[in-house]
């Protein structure tokens, strides 16, 4: 009995994801099934619909309902200087190499609401690299990108950000980088000067330039292995020889198709250097 139920639910989820893809072009079919199912169930419980099947006609005929759903599918979960030791290691092991290039191009893939974009910008500025760097910050979620562009965050979150910044080897007072106003804080405008925010979907778009560093942390954990391999293929293609790839601390190239194209720079920080291919 349970078996039949399970199959029916799996079919419902497949159909919903297929409907979203064919109607709106957003492809969640190769996302981590466990995570996307959890989000669908959560969305279902707030939607007033009785079953996953009931979501399908509403998604097909109601754009605003779809917008709500897609917001659930891509709840941005990021913070400034998350895993401070990673930023410390970027300073120690990656920045010195980046310095040897006349112009540094960085692809921050899956930047969500931008907290880590500003973290990177701050790090580059403190290391004297900011003025000859360009950060391409991309995400498929336009709403999140708008927030990233605005660079305005709840002031309450700056306490953690400040602590993380200090642990990451930050050299100044973190308050120099934002202007607080009541309960919101706007990131300093010059931190956006070298950032290009644009829409890019790792599930469907292709490479757009040569990069010296690809920064993509805790984005691919939401993908299944096939989609992970697709994204890693894009990163590999995009990176110059000797360029760096920085993943989340629990992500590894070990299970991937491009494993042999990289060597490990730092095990804990999950930083790799492209040594194979062109």
């Amino acid at each position, binding site marked *: 009995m349970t078996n039949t139920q399970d199959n029916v639910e799996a079919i419902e989820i*497949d159909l919903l994801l297929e409907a979203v893809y064919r109607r709106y072009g957003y492809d969640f079919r190769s996302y981590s099934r*466990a995570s996307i*199912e959890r989000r669908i169930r959560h969305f279902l419980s707030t939607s007033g619909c009785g079953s996953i099947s009931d979501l399908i006609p509403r998604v097909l005929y109601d754009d605003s309902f779809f917008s709500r759903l897609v917001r659930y599918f891509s709840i941005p979960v990021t913070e400034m200087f998350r895993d401070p030791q990673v930023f410390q290691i970027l300073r120690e092991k990656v920045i010195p190499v980046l310095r040897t290039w006349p112009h540094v191009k960085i692809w921050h893939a899956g930047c969500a609401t931008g907290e880590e974009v500003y973290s990177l910008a701050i790090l580059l500025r403190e290391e004297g690299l900011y003025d000859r760097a360009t950060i391409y910050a991309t995400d498929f979620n336009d709403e999140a990108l708008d927030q990233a562009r605005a660079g305005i965050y709840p002031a309450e979150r700056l306490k953690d950000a400040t602590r993380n910044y200090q642990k990451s080897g930050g050299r100044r007072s973190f308050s120099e980088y934002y202007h607080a106003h009541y309960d919101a804080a706007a990131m300093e405008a010059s931190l956006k000067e070298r950032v290009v925010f644009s829409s890019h979907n790792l599930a469907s778009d292709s490479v757009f330039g040569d990069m010296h560093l690809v920064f993509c942390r805790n984005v691919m954990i939401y993908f299944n*292995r*096939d989609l992970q391999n697709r994204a890693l293929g894009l990163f590999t293609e995009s990176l110059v020889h000797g360029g760096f790839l920085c993943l989340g*601390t*629990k992500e590894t190239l070990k*299970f991937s198709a491009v494993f042999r194209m990289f060597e490990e720079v730092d095990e804990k920080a999950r930083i790799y250097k492209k040594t194979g291919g062109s």
Partner: protein
Amino acid sequence: MNPPPDRVNGAAMAGLVVMGCSAGGFRALTEVLSGLPADYPLPVMLVQHLHLNDEGLFAGHLALESPLPVTEPFDKEEIRPGHVYVAPADYHMLVESGGTVALSTDGKVHWSRPSIDVLFESAAYAFGRRVIGVIMTGASDDGSQGIRTIRSRGGFTIAEDPATAEFPFMPRSAVATGCVDTILTLEGIGKKLADMARNIISFPDETCRYE
């Protein structure tokens, strides 16, 4: 459009033990794991509420006290029998029906990341009646919803006896759901898990709820 077919042991996975604990968890886990044989045939996945800066220390210490290998998994790592997986600090740990681990940085559940509910619910949806869920000592009600879901999908549920638990709140909250199959001491939990595994291996077509 379907997820890729099982390249790993998902379909073949006989069963899966999921455990959750919070305050007092280290001692409890040490005792339960030491009751398992070194050739334990099921994977064990556990959530212990950890400090943000744990960096794998908890798993490392537990490994020293456990007859089974204990590690923090990487995302999409294959789940192997006889191996203990500890959810890393600041990540939820889920299980995919193909038999791999999926990590997530989604928002906290019950003020916790990792959350016991997230692990238990994903296990219940992926493996249904092949899941054994265990709630032990803790001062939170995380895990109670997960116990409900495991039970509703045909799995088997165990709570540590609140009378002897170091922190009784969490197992008491699980028992209060009315979805706990058996209440045991830590020693009893180890024995039960060993017995049930033998049964699951001998009668793979039976449900966990063989009693």
